[in-house]
């Protein structure tokens, strides 16, 4: 399982990123991308254990194994969640400065990119990035806090 996880986690994260980027006109977007990215972390949690990320990947000493709320990773998830919701809200606000309604959007098409060749980058991407952060932050907080109980 650990062997599989090592390869699959990278693949999941790549697919999550591509889903996130193509979300404007094709299936995908911040929510789906975020959920998929979360499964990568969940796989690490299942294949190794709840403290693997903090102890082995980040090389930190664990304060205690009793309560997940004290963990720095959980703190980071909470921050990710907060930053995400702030980003989404502010991204919606930006069009007001141009005299457009809340959540208005526009796009540019980038050409000549490797692999993608042509990619539509919408201003909604900032909002989607916020959604992505909220989803990843919220689900991982729940997973690690409930998982530690």
């Amino acid at each position, binding site marked *: 399982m650990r062997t599989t996880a090592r390869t699959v986690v990278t693949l999941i994260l790549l697919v999550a990123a591509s889903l996130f980027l193509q979300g404007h006109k094709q299936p995908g977007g911040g929510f789906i991308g975020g959920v998929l990215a979360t499964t990568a972390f969940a796989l690490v949690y299942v294949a190794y254990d709840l403290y693997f990320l903090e102890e082995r990947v980040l090389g930190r000493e664990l304060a205690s194994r009793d309560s997940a709320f004290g963990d720095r990773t959980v703190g980071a998830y909470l921050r990710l969640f907060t930053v995400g919701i*702030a980003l989404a809200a502010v991204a919606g606000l930006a069009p007001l400065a141009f005299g457009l309604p809340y959540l208005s959007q526009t796009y540019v098409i980038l050409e000549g990119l490797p692999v993608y060749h042509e990619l539509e980058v919408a201003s909604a991407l900032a909002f989607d990035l916020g959604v992505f952060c909220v989803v990843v932050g919220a689900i991982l907080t729940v997973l690690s806090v409930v998982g530690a109980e």
Partner: protein
Amino acid sequence: MSTFVVAPILTALFTAVTALLLHRRTRLQTAASLAGTVAYAAAVGVLAWRVALAPDPVGATTYQVGGWPAPFGITLVADALAAFMLVMVATVGVASLVFSTRYVEAPEEKRFYHPLFHFLLVGVSGAFLTGDVFNLFVWFEVMLMASYVFVVFYGGPQHTRAALRYVALNLVGSALMLLAVGGLYATTGTLNMADMSRRLAEPAAYGISVEPVVGLSALLLSVFALKAGLVPFQFWVPSAYRAAPLPVTAMLAGATKKVGIYALVRLYFTVFAAAELPVSLPLPGVDGGSPLAFFAPALFLMAVASVVVGGFGAVDADSFEGVLAYSSIGQIGFIAIPVAIGAAASSPALRRLGVLAGLVYALNHALAKGTLFLTAAATRSAVGTSRLEDLGGLASRSPLLGSVFLVGALALVGIPPLSGFFGKFLAFDVAVRAEAAVAVAVLLLGTGLTIAYTTRAWNRAFWGQQSAAVGAADVDPVQAAVLVGLALTIVAVGVGFDPVYEFAEAAARAATDRGAYVDAVDPADVETGGESA
């Protein structure tokens, strides 16, 4: 550009985000939260002024979120009805949040209390402002997410039990609502309320059949009744209200419950009333064959049952907030009775009067019940308990608390010159005009029960010998100031009732005048591809 329409939602959203970002600095967070609430009240004030209260109001105003035109995008509609509900929520919200700064004091409690409170406001405001049926469902969920956490806020066994019941019921409710919304889309081909209303008025032109709408709207009725806590969907109310922090309960009873009533009025009177059915119910007092006429008897029965169940439950409750929680069930019945009579009526004047009476009563209930729940909260933080058997002699220990309770209780009963008098008066007026003897009898019985349980609470808690716990109680000055402010508002609404009546009448007109609502939203004509007139 009518940014003022979206302003209440955005103010609350940004306050919530700011409070979340500041969750480690509790003092700064409280300051930001207070400032945000004031800004919210100001945004609501501007909206109400522009839409309804100004000498030259602009009337219903729309806002196309994201610049997508109706009916494709999500339209926000601010009309007098939404403005009336928002003002009610803002009043209770400011009082409740200022009160909370002295009620929720432990840092670990404070951290997420303030963000959640504002997310609750976001959900409630969104529900009042949206002009899209599916979006209404989304705002309901936003509101429910916040209230789920509040019910389980203290994390004890009884809180978890109450939350489980609350969550399970509301999940079923949400699933039913989603089903009904999907069905409405399949039937009418639109989710925009104005577009739906227009299509239902001319089903032949759009090739839709109106019969399924009756059943789907019945599903929605049960969902909204669940949110409002009408019998037979009332059983989550007492435990949830006792479990949540009491200032939030003031919000739940004063504001969140009213979202159910608002949704009933908005969808039935503005949207579903448009449909004409070939059959009608063979019942006395029911005219016409619109889904409105089908819904009237059901709502009436539920309202009558609520008055009875809530009243008797309150007489028997053993704690201060228990009395108030059961009383909320009964009072929602009082709001729903005139609305049901109005729904059954065929004359537009009586229909409008029914909605008007419901709205005025809702305002009175929000103010009075908000005051009473905050009185219970002040009692609990001063005395340490709110069980009626441990209380006694509060009025002699704190005459202020006693008088505030008296004002709230008398407003609930309906004594002039308080706000409750006009609510009761209009409800009786509607019942008498519709010659509904049953309604008059139930209203009388309900009033009798209200007198009984408020008197009982007064006797147990405020009258008589001071109990040991009460003898050492001191009321926090900030809490006292909030209570006095609310009590004065109740008196002011009662004494200067005329502008309130005009506001409520404008709101009732906005609810029943379908044509004006459709014109304001002016959804593009999808079928013909052209601009609508």
